């Protein structure tokens, strides 16, 4: 269910979620949030962690963007483009289901 990486556009009603085998955890010794996946560990910065935390399979892409735009008082269009790029990148690495 992945679209090509070139032009990330995610349908507003998509409900992104972490697949089984991918977990976001907080680890003091490693200095913060990390996304754990098969044979891979990705450091997640504060923003990425805020996005991924909302990918529960329940919230729609549109709702996640709304929430982030409100929480961080940022322009919605900019947030949408950034979040779409982040989520598509994760999906391409099989770290997210859209």
């Amino acid at each position, binding site marked *: 269910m*992945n679209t*090509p*990486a070139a032009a990330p556009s995610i349908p507003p009603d998509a409900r992104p979620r972490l*697949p*089984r*085998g*991918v*977990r976001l*955890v907080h*680890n*003091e*010794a*490693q*200095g913060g949030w*990390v996304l*754990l*996946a*098969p*044979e891979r*560990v990705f450091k997640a910065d504060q923003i990425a962690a805020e996005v991924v935390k909302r990918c529960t399979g329940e919230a729609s892409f549109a709702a996640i963007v709304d929430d982030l735009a409100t929480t961080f008082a940022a322009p919605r269009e900019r947030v949408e483009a950034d979040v779409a790029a982040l989520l598509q990148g994760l*999906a*391409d*690495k*099989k770290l997210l289901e859209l």
Partner: protein
Amino acid sequence: MTNGHASTNTRPLHNPLGLLAELTHRCPLGCPYCSNPLAMDKREDELDAATWARVFREAAGLGVLQVHLSGGEPASRRDLVQIMAAAREAGLYTNLITSGVGITDQRLNELADAGLDHVQISIQDSEPKSADHIAGYEGAYARKRALAAAVVALKLPLTVNIVIHRANIARVDALVAMALDMGGTRVEIAHVQYYGWALKNRAALMPTREQVETAVARIEPLRKQHHGRIVIDAVVPDYYARFPKPCVGGWGRRSLNVTPAGRVLPCHAAESIPGLEFWSVKDHSLRDIWERNPAFNAFRGTSFLPQPCQSCERRDIDFGGCRCQAFALTGDARATDPVCHLSPHHHVVAEQASIREDAEYVYRRL
């Protein structure tokens, strides 16, 4: 970030990310490139489940995020589910590395219910007869395919691991297609690394330079072709490389390995280097070993490296390569890994790679 400090100096220590837990050296297969040492731990010396549980808690406290439950064949342990559950309880990401032979559907269900995160199944070839021959086990291919199907049915993520050598190197495209057909979301195209059993079988396993170049050139097109469907990771064939691989991300820097009997090593081949004394989890905490065992400090950092490494711009990228390989090929574990084209011993690698014989495999047996 809180880093520990080695007692012998003030160099900041990294926190290990991964722990390879070799639960047993027992295995039904006999792969001639097995990464286990030639002298293996006996069943009666294996750590019990309670000790593994303690090791996992200590590992989590040290910053370890992922544990790789391996062997031998980890399913040879009757208490595998209990051991896996203890790792999960310690907060670790659990990766089961299995031959695919010896896990019943019921046990797989129990593992999934107890929170297993990921399964890696090795498969020897896309041709069933060849696969069984390499594994030294009749019917292995079919059993591996069946377990893979059961893993995928449970919606557990599956990595397919394929070790590449002369007998299967011509089939990289077919091997990736097989991994997709098995339902894998990740495939490792891992060229043989020549340690232990593989070193013993080197002449029978070694491909030609031409075969290696053809196989390596397929990786990028295959990645493009299967983009978004399967992740292809490649372990490079270092006998034909120009630069060495960074030894497990740096000796005592990112990972550690616990043998079935409880000795803690910077990597699975470390015991091939003479003169190092490895401490056991039976006598020490994992933190104690990570920070204080002289064997872990023996090749930490880069100050021990000779020229040409010391003045090389890649010194902090590859740490002079692999210590075990430096020892195996030059007799000196501190030498520049001779895989590097700048090593004064580089010719040894080409000489060894040119020795190819269609000999019978020496199968790995306990």
